[in-house]
């Protein structure tokens, strides 16, 4: 995988180098009018909206060239580790759990309001670990349900526990990032506060055990779970990711996603500046634009996500008063392996 990524990189940079050399030979005047280049690392899935919306706007405004490298969060982390001291990427867009690892390796440059003024306009809880990174767009987690199987949409997370849905409920595995709130929701239903149930998950685990008769399965492969929901074998999936469920709905699947009254959870999508980044000023400007209302309002719709800038209204389908819970990812990183161990024992067939 890494070797493959490296090889692609080399080939690409060779091609780019060759093209640049050819242009130089053809028109020497370009030497003086050289445009700056900014390399942004992110998820492969981000490529369509980054290249169609973010890049043109940014290149025009800052008179520069943006190269987006789409791969996986852990691959981005490795690129940063290997090039420590001589980074070629300036900005990185990764999931929060991977950001924590990057902070521990000392790979990130903290964001400050002086360098990225839009930090001041973010919703509370959108920056983490002393503003080492910020969340820009957040897919949200609610309950997805089959419109053919259920006449009235679920209004509460508690409905997944209703005995009449025996064998009809699917939840994500705790090993999937979107699976963590299942544990926290169970804690909330057992009567804790969000902060307490994240720190001490015992009540959550006990409550989840009551869900076992209702479970059709616990998924690790998202498409498999939605297949079962769309065909009516499953009635509900929760927590379900807006970026997946609403995309399936838009494609015509007979499902929908609701925001239960206890609130929804925000999924982590972080952006950060790499320490020792080339074009550091441009890098902070890029982050600042991604945190700004203009770009976020353009992106929230097509990515079925929540904006983190206060000025951007909540997307359709989410009531204005719905609670959005933020997850304490540092706490998750510290405890997750123990949770998975208990999960395997408690949730087994």
């Amino acid at each position, binding site marked *: 995988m890494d070797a493959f990524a490296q090889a692609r990189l080399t080939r690409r940079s060779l091609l780019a180098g060759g093209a640049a050399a050819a242009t130089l030979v053809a028109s020497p005047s370009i030497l003086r009018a050289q445009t700056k280049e900014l390399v942004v690392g992110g998820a492969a899935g981000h490529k369509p909206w980054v290249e169609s919306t973010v890049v043109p706007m940014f290149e025009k405004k800052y008179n520069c060239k943006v190269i987006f490298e789409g791969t996986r969060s852990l691959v981005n982390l490795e690129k940063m580790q290997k090039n420590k001291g001589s980074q070629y990427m300036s900005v990185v867009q990764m999931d929060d759990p991977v950001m924590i690892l990057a902070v521990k390796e000392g790979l990130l440059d903290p964001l400050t309001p002086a360098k990225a003024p839009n930090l001041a306009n973010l919703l509370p809880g959108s920056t983490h670990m002393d503003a080492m990174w910020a969340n820009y767009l957040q897919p949200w987690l609610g309950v997805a349900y089959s419109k053919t199987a259920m006449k009235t949409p679920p209004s509460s997370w508690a409905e997944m526990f209703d005995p009449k849905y025996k*064998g009809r409920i699917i939840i994500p*595995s705790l*090993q999937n990032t979107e699976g963590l709130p299942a544990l926290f929701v169970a804690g909330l239903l057992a009567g804790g506060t969000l902060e307490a149930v994240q720190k001490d998950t015992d009540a959550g685990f006990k409550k989840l055990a009551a869900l076992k008769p209702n*479970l*059709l*399965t*616990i*998924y*690790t*492969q998202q498409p*498999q779970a939605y*297949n*079962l929901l769309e*065909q*009516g*074998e499953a009635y509900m999936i929760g927590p379900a990711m807006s970026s997946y469920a609403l995309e399936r709905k838009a494609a015509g699947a007979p499902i929908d996603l609701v925001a239960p009254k206890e609130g929804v959870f925000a999924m982590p999508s972080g952006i950060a500046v790499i320490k020792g980044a080339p074009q550091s000023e441009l890098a902070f400007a890029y982050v600042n634009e991604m945190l700004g209302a203009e770009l976020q309002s353009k992106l929230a719709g097509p990515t079925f996500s929540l904006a983190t800038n206060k000025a951007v209204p909540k997307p359709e389908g989410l009531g204005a008063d719905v609670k959005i819970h933020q997850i304490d990812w540092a706490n998750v990183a510290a405890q997750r*392996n123990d949770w*998975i*161990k208990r999960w*395997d*024992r408690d*949730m*087994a*067939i």
Partner: protein
Amino acid sequence: MSAARRLDPVLLLAAPAVLYLAIVYGLPLLFLLGRSLFGAGGLASFGSFFADPFSWIVLGNTLRSAALVTLVCLVIGYPTALVLARAGGLVQAAILVAIILPLSVGVVVKAFAWQIVLRRDGIVSQIMTGIGLWSEPQRLLFTETGLVIGAANIFVPFMILPIYSVLKLVDPRLGEAAATLGASPVYRFFKVALPLSLPGIVTGIAFVFSMAASMYVIPSLVIGDRFQTLATLTGRSFLFMRNEQLGSTTAVVLLALTVAIVVASSWLSRRLGGAS
């Protein structure tokens, strides 16, 4: 003489295969063994693995599902192999194609197909309620029964082919001779055909059991996260929990288990082969 045999140039033909396996298989295996024995926890990690009751559940899941898959494969596979060995010409070719062709379909595709078959409104449930064996539609998907049925379908060729290859070498006149001496068909089967085919059965069991004990894709699609086996636990330890110590421990336990099965069965098959 012995010196000449040691230098037999034909042995050199094996060199590419030996070299290839040593690099891509032997060396990583050594690393794995090294890590599990001399890693952070060392031998103590085996101690804590076996001290944990959950490990025994996982071990039990692995062995029980593999044994059931092997049993189903044997019950289905033996008669098929018998028919295949007796059949001639076009019929034999047709059966062989029917057995071998499905091997070209990926495991993921087959596991996915079983999901559809085993659903509550799937064909199994429809047939069982249709003929009145089940009073209401049931779901076999995400149950151990479903896992065994699905896995047996995928592994059954590996039971049929070794048994067939032994059976087709058995002289058909042996059965006829027994018949002329007055042996009933049942007696002929248990006293003549079955003992002669034992080496094939043992090989088939070794194949299917070791594959079923280490299957990863099939359980993760057909039964899901709630049924951990040594293979799925190894994958999860390395990929998600980043616990390389636990991962290499479970991998070595699984390896020891399957190596024991293969060695025991090859010993058994040699003994049985010699006896006949």
